[in-house]
């Protein structure tokens, strides 16, 4: 393993971006993370930053010169927004996006530089990025294995050191699953915290956007730059920005100070392999040396997953009803029959799921009367091989594609902020979830930063990509 190859001192922003583009050209064929590389746009932006600096502009922004890429469901001016599909590309009269998604605009206003669009599961319905149209995305730690999904390209591009950070979306775990399998940090914020303006939807009542990065500081910087109300997203909060970078402290004890931390058992251990439990053990041992760790039981985790399962299938099926009717054969074979079944779900099932979800969220929120942070595994297992149909958890076989979200769905169904923190270990990466109370992203980032400072969490780039 090595540290991030893009973090060596550049002579100029243009040089740095040129090196980034060369790195992508050399290494992306091994992982298939990118569906579009925006060389000209990125170099123009880099030269503009260099010119502004030469003209005496004091500060370009906190993300100055940092290369990033986005899951290809975000609008990028001049590109057709694919959302992992063939249909969007072939749609009669398919037009390139006229403007960038809100998140991209805000990141570039903070000095970051967009270098490309990234592979994903079609219409975000999957945890594997085995995309039939654009090819499977491969895990940089073992290219025979999954990168996770649906933001698989985002996880792979960050893990392989091709960008400093990437944007993904997380409906049921689509940031946390690839972050865990690829060994990067990832943040799913509180539902409604970050604007989804200019992104292709999947499930309106569950969709969030967020960053993946190799350090907690980069994760927090990107998150901070994207905060703020946005009239383009009716689900975006009107709350004032609450920057998190300033809350990160210089030593781990300070980052843990004042936080009541608990480890989740029950469902979160029963649905985890020994590898996932060992990652949680390592994190708890390190934190436990500085701060007490209580035990907590998440109420009705399976019920939360059930709600998310029904709502996802039905909302997704309804959203794509017309394409199911007329372009079924052009849809992703891995997900089109799940969409079709969801389109046939009776309204009473969906209504019931959203009512149970209301009661579920109220019960989950009671946990935060006694705890500020909850720790749990992020995924049941290490990255499965591409094409594997089954995973085994404690002697039971589960279908691999939906089951990678067994531990993420109960959390996102409650709309809570979570940081996926990759735990250092021999072998393949695996992450834990650092879950905070609503609107307390900064608390989750502080604990993730403490784990990073303690040497327990890290996202080293594999040697082959250095």
């Amino acid at each position: 393993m090595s540290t991030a190859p893009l973090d060596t001192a550049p002579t100029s922003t243009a040089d740095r971006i040129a090196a980034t583009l060369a790195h992508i050209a050399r290494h992306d064929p091994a992982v298939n993370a990118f569906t579009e590389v925006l060389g000209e746009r990125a170099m123009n932006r880099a030269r503009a930053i260099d010119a502004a600096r030469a003209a005496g502009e004091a500060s370009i922004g906190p993300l100055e010169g940092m290369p990033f890429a986005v899951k290809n469901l975000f609008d990028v001016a001049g590109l057709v927004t694919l959302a992992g599909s063939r249909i969007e590309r072939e749609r009669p009269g398919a037009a390139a996006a006229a403007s960038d998604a809100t998140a991209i605009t805000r990141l570039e206003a903070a000095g970051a530089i967009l270098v490309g669009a990234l592979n994903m599961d079609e219409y975000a319905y999957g945890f594997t990025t085995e995309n039939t149209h654009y090819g499977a995305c491969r895990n940089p730690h073992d290219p025979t294995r999954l990168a996770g999904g649906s933001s698989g390209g985002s996880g792979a591009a960050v893990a392989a050191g091709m960008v400093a950070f990437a944007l993904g979306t997380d409906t049921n775990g689509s940031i946390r699953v690839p972050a865990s399998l690829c060994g990067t940090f990832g943040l799913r914020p509180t539902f409604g915290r970050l604007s989804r303006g200019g992104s292709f939807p999947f499930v309106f009542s569950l969709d969030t956007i967020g960053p993946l990065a190799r350090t907690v500081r980069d994760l927090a910087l990107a998150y901070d730059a994207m905060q703020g109300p946005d009239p383009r997203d009716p689900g975006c909060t009107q709350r004032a920005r609450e920057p998190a970078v300033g809350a990160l402290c210089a030593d781990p004890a300070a980052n843990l100070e004042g936080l009541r931390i608990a480890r989740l058992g029950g469902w979160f251990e029963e649905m985890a392999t020994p590898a996932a439990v060992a990652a949680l053990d390592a994190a708890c041992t390190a934190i436990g040396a500085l701060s007490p760790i209580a035990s907590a039981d998440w109420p009705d985790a399976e019920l939360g997953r059930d709600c998310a399962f029904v709502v996802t299938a039905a909302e997704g099926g309804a959203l794509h009803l017309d394409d199911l009717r007329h372009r079924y054969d052009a849809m992703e074979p891995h997900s089109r029959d799940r969409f079709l079944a969801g389109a046939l779900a009776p309204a009473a099932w969906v209504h019931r799921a959203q009512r149970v979800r209301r009661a579920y969220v109220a019960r989950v929120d009671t946990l935060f009367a006694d705890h500020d942070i909850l720790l749990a595994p992020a995924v049941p297992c290490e990255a499965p091989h591409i094409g594997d149909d089954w995973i085994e958890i404690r002697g039971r076989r589960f279908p691999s594609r939906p089951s990678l979200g067994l531990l993420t769905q109960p959390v996102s169904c409650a709309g809570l902020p979570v940081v996926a923190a990759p735990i250092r270990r021999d072998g393949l990466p695996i992450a834990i979830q650092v879950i905070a109370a609503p609107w307390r992203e900064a608390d989750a980032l502080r604990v993730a930063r403490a784990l990073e400072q303690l040497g327990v969490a890290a996202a080293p780039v594999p040697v082959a990509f250095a």
Partner: protein
Amino acid sequence: MDRIGIEAWIDAGAAMLGLPVTPSNRQQVADNLERLAAIAARLDAVELEPEVEPLQVFVR
């Protein structure tokens, strides 16, 4: 809803909505709908007060 009910629902629903259920995908659609039906049955068994409203899109 048992498998026979699932199959009947698929026939009726696909015809009503104009969805392409054919011999090549019927089994997969039925398997997925059966999984959803089992989950829906669990959700139906949860006791809820009548005033509990659906969550839908919410901003916390």
